């Protein structure tokens, strides 16, 4: 059974007691080890691949060199034949015949290196896919674990603070009520605001001596003085 299936079976199975681990800590360790192993495999395979590809390149260069030599000596043999020096031509031909087995061997070596490189590349690709898959599973397992732990931390926090999680309907009602209170307050504030602007206008008018009769100590005193004088 795949690990994910196990997790979901555990989740469905109702392993929901507080503090009960949904995800086996051991399973996480195993997956983490598998990821580490896969990473080590890839590193090793890449190292091997570099070496094999370097050897493949060396072989290619050697093949080039030998082929050039063969062509060169074939040219010399041709020249010797043209000059009618069969003896020299035979000697040159012998030289070529010693190069050719080398060339054949190098070509064989190169083919073998190429095949090896191709196998290693395939291996790296396969291991990388495997690694990605392991990592994805690990993420899912760890996330399941984190969310479980977070949820139990939140529940514990409620229990410890002696408060109870309110039901969703009650919560919604309270939030709506608060919104309504806020709206009412806002409206009240607006009304108050407009009243305030009325009174401030009155104050300005009063100061300018406009509007209803205003009585101040000064005007009262003036009035009394006027009476006294009369």
């Amino acid at each position, binding site marked *: 059974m795949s690990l994910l299936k196990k997790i979901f079976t555990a989740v469905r199975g109702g392993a*929901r007691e507080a503090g009960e681990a949904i995800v086996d800590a051991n399973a996480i360790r195993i997956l983490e080890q598998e990821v580490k192993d896969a990473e080590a495999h890839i590193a090793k395979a890449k190292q091997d691949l570099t070496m094999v590809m370097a050897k493949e390149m060396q072989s290619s260069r050697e093949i080039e060199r030998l082929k050039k030599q063969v062509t060169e000596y074939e040219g010399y043999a041709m020249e010797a034949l043209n000059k009618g020096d069969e003896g020299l031509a035979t000697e040159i031909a012998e030289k070529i015949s010693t190069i050719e087995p080398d060339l054949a061997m190098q070509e064989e070596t190169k083919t073998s290196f190429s095949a090896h490189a191709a196998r290693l590349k395939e291996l790296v690709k396969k291991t990388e896919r495997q690694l990605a898959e392991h990592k994805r599973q690990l*993420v899912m397992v*760890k*996330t399941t674990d*984190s*969310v*479980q*732990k*977070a*949820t*139990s*931390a*939140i529940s*514990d*926090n409620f229990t410890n603070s002696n408060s109870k*999680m*309110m*039901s*969703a*309907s*009650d*919560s*919604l009602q*309270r*939030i709506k009520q*608060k*919104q309504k209170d*806020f709206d009412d307050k806002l409206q009240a504030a607006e009304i108050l605001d407009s009243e305030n602007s009325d009174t401030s206008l009155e104050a300005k008018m009063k100061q300018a001596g406009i509007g209803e009769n205003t009585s101040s100590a000064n005007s009262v005193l003036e009035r009394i003085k006027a009476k006294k004088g009369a």
Partner: protein
Amino acid sequence: MSIKDIVKSLEKLDSDVREGFDFDYQIIPGNEEVLQISLQGREEIPVYLTETDTQLLCISYLWDESEIKPESRTNMIEMMLDMNIPMPLSSFSRIGDKYAVFGALSLNSSAEDIAHEIVILSDNAIDAIDVMSDFLK
């Protein structure tokens, strides 16, 4: 970024990034550090933020199994499935016996993105409860 750093960067944001909501932060200790974010006026349904190896998870808990009218349970779950894609940025889930809405963010998310996620998730949670209150006791 640690949970504490997230709080610091959220605190620096202008109010309009939080769409006018004041956030109140509380770090809940435990095996898994969780940040509780209460939006002013919506304290009853906070948003919880937790960090995993690969993502930031924002979760709001909606209700638990005991709150659901038994005869409405199937309809409720179907509605959750129907709403899952249309609902912006959040998805429905269940953790243990608690139903929840959640959103996942990249670990590289900016404070603005996190604040936006928190407000949207809170909106979605309230809408979801409103829409599905008929299924609840």
